[in-house]
């Protein structure tokens, strides 16, 4: 079953890639969509078996690299962590595949586009099912490749090519750290297979390792090196500059790769390596601080951007920051929970934005939008759901996951935990603000687009709205359905303080969910020609309901995660998070509401407020608007200098030193030689042959001489 879930997208990619011309665009679309949809159902089946049924296992396919004492297999590790990721990847990917059929319908390379999407899906699945670090690295670079291909999909555009290239190279910087981390693990543990590493970690807890001439605590060093990889892939502060530029890719790509799945690979990596990170508290501290800072910085930039996709991109970066500081306080379950809910509502937001862009004749600048909510009501409603979920408003998914992340950060009771908490709180305020700034600027107010554009504004076809509704369902339900299993308290039900609140909310939610579910159902019924999508959505909803019923009774987080995550008992912040003071729990929600209210004030009520604020805080605005000048800095320090040094080596190293004192040493000799050669062009072989003969004669005479003496 796991083979189907992982390799079917590869098969689809190969078919669509190799025979794309024969199949035609339609053929490619059918092949890839059906493959990924089947893979999605298979993953849900696996989820039921493994996460709820407790049947984790590993399937070895064949050996990969075997050399000396190093050996590594192609193998699929199927445990709760990987099946959760597989479900997220395959479900979101299926939505994006179907959506792309509509979104790319005017593109004359849409068959190739579908093939790339399937390739990405395969690579991502390999990443999450890897049973060793090298296969994970294979998936890791594979998704990087797919990302490169898809960002640069419109390869006639300079900006798209530049963005694709930047994404690949910046990610390579992270991979450089990651690769060193893998090597360090091999040198320390003698293996890179997860089970064997995890079993050996406690024995190596106090080990030191000499790196670059300094002695480091081995686990901390490894944790930090791997985290460098995560920083790159998950666009954390320092190596984040590629993510906003990656928005050059078609919008479905942004939804799938740069929001829901690939960028969360770093989070997955740290969660996967939790048995090691638990013995590297200093590394975790760095993770928490980087995560908290990223959450805050990205949110500040998000406040000022005008490109609708870039706003969402910065919000992704900020939400990834949340996940990382959750990891940093050992709240791996919370991080994974936020990963899952975020995948749904962020993919929804991106695809919704795509629907807007589609409606507005490919306009992405929010300053040229406005006043379209009546014309595209379904998209509008769906964007509301996504934004409310992102802002952390109950009962939507983001509320549950963001709360538990922040509570866990507080519950860590450490300086960096508190730092992350306050950064997260500030970011929560800004998140709600810019999300609704986006809603209000895009949909409300007077239309700012040209009349021609406005007259073309139309609701997207069913093939695009269907997947959106499925994602919206996820954005609504994923939170409370999975709360207990992912991060629920394992203490006795009702005994702790937070429980009453929990039950109450759950009950309310059941009602709300049913209503919303019906609503979605109705809408999708109105849309003609979306049968398959609708059925799919139904099936998904049903399965979620089933899971939900099971959840409350039997599945606490320990039996859910089993051995897939490891937390030392004294670090169990997810458990402690249920017992934090009430104000800690309520503050994120207050911030969310305040943010939305602020956005309403600034963009609906007093529309000259943004201008005044900008004037009063000009330097701050310049800083935020220009993304803290990271790009300028990197261009100046790294890019320009690499070229400068390269040119210096070439001109002064190769030509003016090596060649000048080497082969060009004697200009006269060169001339003479050249003269001879040009006279008898084909003759110069004889010069060499002559030399060789001379040498052979020399050998022979030497030997004669020697043997003559010897005999």
């Amino acid at each position, binding site marked *: 079953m796991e083979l189907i879930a992982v390799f079917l997208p590869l098969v689809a990619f190969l078919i669509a890639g190799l025979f794309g011309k024969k199949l035609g665009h339609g053929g490619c679309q059918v092949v890839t969509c059906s493959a990924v949809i089947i893979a999605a159902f298979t993953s849900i089946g696996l989820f039921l078996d493994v996460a709820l049924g407790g049947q984790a296992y590993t399937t070895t396919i064949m050996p*990969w*690299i*075997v*050399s*000396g*004492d*190093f050996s590594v297999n192609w193998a699929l590790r199927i445990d709760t962590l990987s099946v959760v990721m597989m479900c997220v990847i395959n479900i979101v990917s299926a939505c994006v595949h179907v959506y792309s059929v509509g979104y790319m319908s005017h593109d004359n390379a849409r068959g190739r586009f579908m093939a790339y999407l399937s390739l990405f899906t395969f690579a991502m699945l390999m990443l999450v099912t890897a049973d060793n670090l*090298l296969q994970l*690295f*294979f998936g890791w670079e594979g998704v990087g*490749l797919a990302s490169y291909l898809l960002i*640069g999909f419109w*390869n*006639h*555009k*300079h900006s798209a*090519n530049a963005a694709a*290239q930047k994404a*690949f*190279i910046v990610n*390579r910087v992270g991979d*450089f750290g990651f*690769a*060193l981390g893998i*090597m*360090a693990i*091999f*040198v320390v543990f003698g293996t890179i297979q997860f089970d064997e590493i995890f079993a050996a970690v406690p024995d190596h807890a106090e080990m030191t390792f*000499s*790196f*670059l001439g300094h002695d480091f605590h081995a686990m901390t060093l490894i944790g930090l090196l791997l985290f460098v990889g995560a920083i790159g892939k998950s666009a954390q502060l320092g190596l984040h500059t590629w993510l906003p530029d990656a928005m050059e890719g078609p919008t479905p790509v942004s939804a799938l790769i740069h929001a829901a799945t690939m960028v969360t690979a770093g989070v997955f990596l740290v969660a996967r390596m939790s048995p090691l990170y638990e013995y590297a508290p200093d590394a975790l501290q760095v993770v928490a601080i980087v995560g908290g800072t990223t959450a805050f910085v990205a949110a500040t930039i998000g406040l000022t951007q005008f490109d609708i996709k870039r706003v969402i991109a910065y919000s992704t970066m900020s939400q990834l920051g949340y996940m990382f500081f959750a990891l940093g306080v050992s709240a791996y379950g919370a991080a994974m929970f936020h990963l899952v809910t975020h995948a749904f509502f962020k993919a929804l937001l991106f695809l919704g934005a795509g629907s807007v862009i589609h409606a507005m004749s490919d306009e992405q600048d929010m300053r040229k939008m406005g006043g379209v909510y009546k014309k595209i009501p379904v998209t509008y409603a769906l964007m509301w759901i996504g934004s409310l979920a992102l802002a952390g408003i109950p009962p939507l998914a983001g509320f549950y996951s963001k709360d538990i992340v922040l509570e866990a950060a507080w519950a860590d009771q450490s300086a960096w935990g508190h730092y992350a908490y306050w950064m997260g709180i500030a970011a929560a305020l800004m998140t709600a603000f810019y999300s609704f700034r986006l809603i209000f600027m895009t949909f409300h107010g007077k239309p700012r687009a040209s009349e021609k554009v406005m007259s073309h504004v139309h609701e997207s076809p069913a093939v695009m709205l269907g997947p959106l509704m499925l994602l919206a369902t996820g954005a609504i339900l994923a939170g409370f359905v999975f709360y207990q299993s992912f991060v629920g308290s394992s203490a006795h039900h009702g005994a702790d303080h937070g429980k009453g609140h929990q039950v109450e909310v759950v009950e309310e939610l059941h009602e709300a969910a049913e209503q919303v579910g019906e609503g979605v159902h109705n809408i999708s019924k109105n849309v003609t020609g979306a049968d398959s999508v609708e059925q799919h959505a139904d099936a998904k909803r049903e399965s979620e309901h089933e899971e939900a019923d099971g959840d409350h009774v039997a599945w606490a987080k320990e039996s859910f995660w089993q051995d897939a995550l490891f937390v030392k008992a004294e670090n169990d912040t997810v458990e402690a998070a249920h017992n934090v003071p009430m104000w800690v729990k309520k503050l994120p929600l207050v911030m969310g509401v305040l943010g939305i209210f602020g956005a309403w004030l600034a963009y609906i009520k007093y529309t000259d407020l943004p201008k005044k604020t900008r004037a009063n805080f000009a330097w701050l605005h310049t800083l935020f608007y220009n993304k803290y000048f990271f790009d300028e800095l990197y261009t100046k320090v790294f890019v320009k200098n*690499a*070229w400068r*040094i*390269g040119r210096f*080596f*070439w001109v002064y*190293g*190769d*030509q003016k030193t*090596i*060649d000048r004192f*080497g*082969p060009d040493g004697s200009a006269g000799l*060169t001339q003479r030689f*050249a003269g001879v*050669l*040009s006279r008898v*062009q*084909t003759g*110069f072989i004889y010069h*060499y*042959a002559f*030399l*060789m003969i001379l*040498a052979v004669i020399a*050998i022979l005479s030497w*030997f004669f001489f*020697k*043997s003559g003496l010897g005999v």
Partner: protein
Amino acid sequence: MIEFSLLSIMTFLPLAGCLIILMIRGDEETVGKNAKYMALYTSLFTLAFAVYMVIRFEPLDDGFQFVEHSGWLKTFGINYHMGVDGISVLFVLLATFLTPICILSAWSSIKTRVKEFMIAFLVLESFMIGTFCALDTILFYTFFEGVLIPMFLIIGVWGGKRRVYASYKFFLYTLLGSVLMLVAILTLYAQVGSTDIPTLMANPVSPEIQKWLWIAFFASFAVKMPMWPVHTWLPDAHVEAPTAGSVILAGVLLKMGGYGFLRFSLPLFPDATAFFTDFVYWLSVIAIIYTSLVALVQTDMKKLIAYSSVAHMGYVTLGIFTATVVGVEGAVYQMLSHGLISGALFLCVGVVYDRLHTREIARYGGVVKNMPKYATVFMIFMLGSVGLPGTSGFVGEFLVLLAAFKVNTTIAFLAASGLVLGAAYMLVLYRKVVFGPTEHSDAASMQDLNPREFWLLAPLVVLVIYFGVFPSAITSITSPAIEKLVSNYNAHLAASAEAVDTPLQPLENEGH
């Protein structure tokens, strides 16, 4: 019978092809055409023998196989001694595999002196095979240096505008190395009384002499590799050589240096190798970083790929001199993989060069629009060169870095920066050539791969991916021989260390 002289048959079959080509009579066009077909059939025949050899090769046997031994210059104890082990057998296959590809790639781009070109190529093939099969130092030397003659011709006669300068440079560098190597071989003979490689392996010379001999051999192999700072002949040679010449130069000739290190430096001079290890590490790291940066600023496609070859060869020398199974295996893998990938990259350059007659990167752009097949194939080789997991380029690079990390983290750290720089120059090249708006109408109107070009590149695509996913296809053949090489090396070092520790007890040891 075939068992007995398989290696000789392979070595001299191309020369027999030459003789037949020499006998072709007729007007120039007919001669050229017949010469082409004759050369192609000869090289395919040779390839068939090579495939047969690899099938019959016994991977678990770590010694030399298909051994041939007969007197040659008996008076001096110089024998005709041929044989292959797990290290050399695949290089023979690589050489015989790339030769027909080169001949096909030259099919329509070589228009003058076709007959001579084909003869030069077959002679070249013969000498390459001989180099990898020879088990006698004099025999090795003859083939190893003999390779230069047809290569000179190929660059000097069918080369570009500055071919005279390029061949002169090539000459000067290699002459320096080969003279020193010859002296070293003679010294070895004087010391041990034999030119036979297995005999020399069994009778190591004293550590002091080893150092001098090591340096002499190193001079020759370092130039061939090429290692920094004796690499500057390579970009010029590549730029001036015709496509087929570049392919064989990058694909096989560069590997002869690495092969030399494995056949001579490590087994014959283990003490000196250990002594010079750090020196080679630093040269390798400089090669990786320095030439990658230089590659970044190139405006000529072939020069860029040539510099990237120097960087990739830096991994090879690094891996070899870790003297660990993983490192050496990685180095051998990297050489074989680079043989395929860089050869393929030069073929890709050749494809567009044949259409536009310029290697200037800026003259291209937007090629993907009319040449989607070409763009796809080029992309796969570009990714292989970048070392993407799943391509053969990754396996060697990773194993080398892993081995280097074990022995010296600083070196591994610096060498791993090649991951970033390598991605940078290749992506920049690919983007400028293939992507972007079409700015030059002649570049935009180029035709996509014709069937000949496609089928030339297709096997390379398959192999690059196949060896990325199933590396054991190669490592199962190379492993036993490499394990033996490394264990002999370590045993010798341990013995030397003991001898130093207990200098006064040699007699006692003899008594045991």
